[in-house]
């Protein structure tokens, strides 16, 4: 057996690459979660009104929330996603933000 190096070299390389990204450039996602209360018509309307989605896109995202339990509705920097999450809470939708999958 070969002894593993004490420091995981691969992670280190990844870390170096990540450090080059300014905090404002790290992508985040706004996620809307399914709840049993909000009406489907209302959720689709919120997506149209707040995000400016066209009707088919809003309908598709709403159905994704409904059937898969969650959908990503916006991506961007952290501050912008926090504003979206707060707006969703104003509308009574259950939303969170998280780091976008990379």
């Amino acid at each position, binding site marked *: 057996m070969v002894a593993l190096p004490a420091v995981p070299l691969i992670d280190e390389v990844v870390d170096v690459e990540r450090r080059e990204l300014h905090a404002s450039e790290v992508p985040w996602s706004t996620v809307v979660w399914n*709840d*049993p*209360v*909000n*009406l489907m*018509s*209302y959720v689709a*309307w919120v997506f149209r*009104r707040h995000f400016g989605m066209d009707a088919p896109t809003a309908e598709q995202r709403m159905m994704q929330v409904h059937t898969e339990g969650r959908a990503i509705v916006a991506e961007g920097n952290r501050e912008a996603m*926090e504003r979206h*999450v*707060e707006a969703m*809470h*104003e*509308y*009574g939708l*259950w*939303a*969170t*933000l*998280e780091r976008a999958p990379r």
Partner: protein
Amino acid sequence: MRGFVLVDGGFEAVVEPEEARILASLAAQLSALLGEAADDESLSGSDPAVARLLPDAYRDDEEAAAEWRRLSRRALAERKGSFASRFAAALADASAASESTRIRLDEAGALDWVRAIGDLRLVLAERMEVGDDREGMRDLYDWLAWMQDDLVRVLDLAEERRA
């Protein structure tokens, strides 16, 4: 109440005094609950309705969630409380009337209503889990759903006309 119609510069519905009193009472209770919740973060832990009205913005990061609550929770609760209190205020005359009243809303008013009604349904959904008068609450819950759906319909119509 038969639903809203689009009129010049807004939306109109005819509301019976009894309907207005029920809605105004619910709206005042919601406003009071949000007022308490704004001042007392621990209500999010003890009252599931408050937890649902003011959810955490981060799911798997308690530190970020706590920071978010510190910076944003109170103002959000106050804004939601103001949707509810403006909803209640719009119903004041109709509640005091002896006959049905025509209520007119501009777009901002309709947004207050559609949001406050949604928040009321979130609270009722939690209260129905444990409450005594479940059937009565279910009727209210369904009635509010109808009203919210109706408002979405006319808000959409107004948007289409503008386009």
